[in-house]
């Protein structure tokens, strides 16, 4: 039983319950466990989405995710951290991303989890293409996401 950082980019689905148990079992001193899961939504900008294709820059992705988790660990006292991101073809309601954080205090767990997602959204080299009834469409980055990372500094 000891704290860990687990980062993975994978095509296959992840088992949410299994990831939760690993985090929960990693310590008896962490009273707070916060998870985030991002799911493929069926609507985006009024067009009906049937699926997503996720591309990434393999040599860089793990490096960036590791740095983001290190930054979070330097801001808050955390126990274990898991980040899993899927790539390849996904369908509506599929799980895209998992972030799990344990901490002795709930505020640290909430804030570190949100921080990791905010930076993942703007720094990690993933690109989403939507499959819609009107054909494929690369998703545009949102300026509101850039704004969120600025709010942390």
């Amino acid at each position, binding site marked *: 039983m000891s704290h860990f950082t687990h980062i993975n980019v994978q095509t296959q689905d992840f088992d949410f319950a299994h990831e939760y148990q690993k985090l929960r079992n990693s310590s008896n001193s962490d009273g707070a466990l916060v998870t985030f899961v991002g799911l493929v939504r069926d609507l985006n900008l009024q067009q009906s989405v049937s699926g997503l294709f996720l591309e990434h*820059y393999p040599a860089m992705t793990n*490096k960036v995710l590791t740095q983001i988790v290190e930054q979070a660990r330097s801001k808050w006292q955390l126990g274990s951290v898991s980040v899993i991101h899927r790539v390849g073809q996904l369908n509506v309601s599929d799980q895209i991303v998992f972030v799990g954080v344990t901490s002795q205090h709930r505020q640290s767990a909430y804030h570190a989890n949100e921080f990791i*997602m905010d930076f993942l*959204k703007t*720094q990690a080299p993933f690109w989403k293409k939507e499959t819609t009834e009107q054909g494929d469409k*690369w998703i545009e980055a949102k300026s509101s996401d850039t704004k969120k990372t600025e709010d942390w500094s």
Partner: protein
Amino acid sequence: MLKVLFFGQLKEIIKTDCLEVELVQGDKQLNTVAMLRKVLQEKGELWNEYLAFGKALVAVNQEMSSDDTALKDADEIAFFPPVTGG
């Protein structure tokens, strides 16, 4: 030699995912990202538009970088649109 990669929509628009660029071009050397960007932008109209500063982000050796980042032989440079994961 520099290894240059392209990702996301940019890769589709310029129909290129990877190319090699000589570090020394005639009488000049590509010392910075800005100089490499300029050489690449000369490859065509779409290259010029979509590799423009502010439109394409750049990473050097898998680290987010900027126009004044220095380049040396065997570096891996990647250009890509703003990221949209998560």
